[in-house]
């Protein structure tokens, strides 16, 4: 067991990745995730077998990661919103080639160049595929630094287990803030080595490809990926239910927004409002069944995001009209306060009662 240390989110991702056996990192500077690349620059080169490359572009970085993954390394890249847009080509190829990799997105305000303040505007991009073609990526959304450390380690296991790119979706707040953290000792890496290219040591040459010209065979590959995603959807859903038991109103929020929601809930409960929180930890697969279960007792949901409403669509799809859904969001890098959210929820609660 490691001892408790105070570290910033970006550094924690780097340390957790190295502890998890990540030995290849390629990245490109962009705020607010630079501290992660800087941490890797220093610590990868101090780690035996560790490779750090400052790539010429986000596109090059993700494709270096693809090459490293094909060669059998645990590999990671990180960026922030505009940079993640550039990486989508490589993520689509990783998904098609069924190669494991971890991609960290420390989100900032957008669209366009936007700003460098924390935001949650990349939910659609992360959860709906992001790049071209028919694929999904598991998306892990930590809400505190300890969880960021744990999920970073888990991301590599998930990537190996399903041979898929995995996205860690956090925002500038998570990347920059410091909290105490205890790093776990991760289990040894388990993965199917049969896909790894090392030269035809075993006697037979292999290839990794994404081009499948025959439509029927491409369709077969699509269905194979789909079945894999179905298994993930069944087995890998994670969420936190906070004060749900007696709740009459349930906030649905993730990441930094969920922390703000907890502050709001504390205030609202003091004023007599029975408010709880469902916090999806995996944004894909999304905790649909869990939401429907809660909707058996609760008729009022409020989706709260630091965007104009993206996860809102998944909540609507999950609940299929079973309950009343409100939304509150602040896009563009604005961080709402718990007091602000509490006020909004109290107002909506009174209005809905009338």
């Amino acid at each position: 067991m490691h001892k408790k240390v105070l570290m910033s989110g970006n550094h924690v991702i780097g340390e957790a990745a190295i502890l998890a056996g990540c030995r290849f990192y390629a990245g490109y500077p962009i705020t607010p995730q630079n501290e992660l690349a800087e941490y890797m620059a220093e610590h990868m080169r101090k780690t035996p077998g560790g490779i750090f490359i400052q790539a010429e572009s986000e596109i090059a970085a993700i494709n270096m990661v693809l090459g490293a993954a094909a060669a059998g390394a645990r590999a990671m890249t990180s960026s922030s919103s505009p940079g993640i847009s550039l990486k989508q080509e490589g993520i689509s190829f990783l998904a098609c080639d069924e190669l494991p990799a971890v991609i960290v997105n420390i989100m900032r305000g957008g669209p366009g160049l936007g700003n460098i303040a924390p935001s949650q505007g990349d939910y659609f991009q992360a959860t709906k595929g992001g790049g071209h073609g028919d694929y999904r990526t598991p998306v892990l959304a930590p809400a505190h630094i300890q969880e960021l450390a744990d999920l970073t380690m888990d991301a590599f296991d998930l990537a190996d287990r399903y041979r898929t790119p995995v996205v860690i979706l956090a925002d500038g707040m998570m990347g920059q803030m410091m909290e105490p953290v205890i790093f776990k000792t991760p289990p040894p890496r388990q993965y199917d080595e049969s896909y790894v290219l090392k030269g035809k040591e075993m006697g037979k040459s292999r290839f990794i490809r994404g081009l499948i010209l025959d439509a029927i065979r491409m369709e077969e590959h699509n269905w194979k990926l789909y079945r894999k995603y179905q298994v993930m959807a069944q087995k890998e859903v994670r969420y936190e239910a906070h004060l749900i038991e007696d709740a009459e109103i349930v906030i649905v929020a993730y990441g930094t927004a969920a922390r703000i929601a907890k502050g709001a809930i504390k205030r609202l409960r003091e004023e007599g409002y029975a408010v709880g929180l469902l916090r999806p930890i995996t944004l894909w697969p999304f905790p649909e069944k869990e939401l429907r279960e809660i909707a058996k007792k609760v008729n009022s949901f409020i989706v709260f995001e630091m965007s104009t409403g993206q996860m809102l669509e998944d909540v609507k799809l999950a609940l299929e009209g079973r309950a009343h859904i409100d939304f509150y969001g602040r896009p563009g890098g604005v961080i709402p306060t718990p007091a602000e959210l509490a006020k909004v929820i109290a107002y909506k609660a009174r209005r809905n009662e009338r």
Partner: protein
Amino acid sequence: MKKVYSRPKSLKPTKFHYCPGCGHSTVHRLICEVIDELSIADRTIGVCPAGCAVIAYNYFDVDMIEAAHGRGCAVATGIKRVLPDRVIFTYQGDGDLAAIGTAETLHAANRGENFTIIFINNAVYGMTGGQMAPTTLTGQFSTTTPFGRSEKLDGYPIRVSELLAQLPGTVYIERCAVNSPLNINRTKKALKKAFLYQMDNDFGLTMIEILSQCPTNWKMSPPDACRWMEEVMMKEYPLGIIKDVTAIKGAE
């Protein structure tokens, strides 16, 4: 009777999909001959491009991966850094290497990545049906330069080998061709030298540019294509060693 010519072991017994007179199949064969002669088939990993050679993994009997269009050098960087004792080559066309993948190529060269680029220059986008490539000659017709490539409107043909030779990260760059038996033999020697350098060193990019015929998109017969290459294309892209700091005397 002594057998003097046969299929290289590293070349799979498969029919090529390339057009009649295309240079790709010749280059494939040469690479496989070199891999066999150096006995490196079990530790060679190739990176194929988007373009006519996209299914090169059907022909090379070594481990292969297909890169996204232009990303060959980034993918090769990832592989080589993780497996430094393997022999890595990228196989890239002019559009792949000198247009969409310029940044990846230039920076791999600048980092002195220790792999070999095999750069097929046929002055045209072959697979997509004959559009202008960055290496298309001034005045040359293509489907996107229907009036001939205009320097003012379409830019100049790029000499990638000369560009990369400026970088200290490159150690050996030679421009070859596969339009004649003499040039084919020279190409093989260059490929072998590049692989030998890579095997004996841990730093420095090697690149063999190969002028290759595309009779289909040049709209010529295969013999005319070979002649046009000699008479026209080599004026813009002269053959020979462009840079060599390897101190390898000549690979026979």
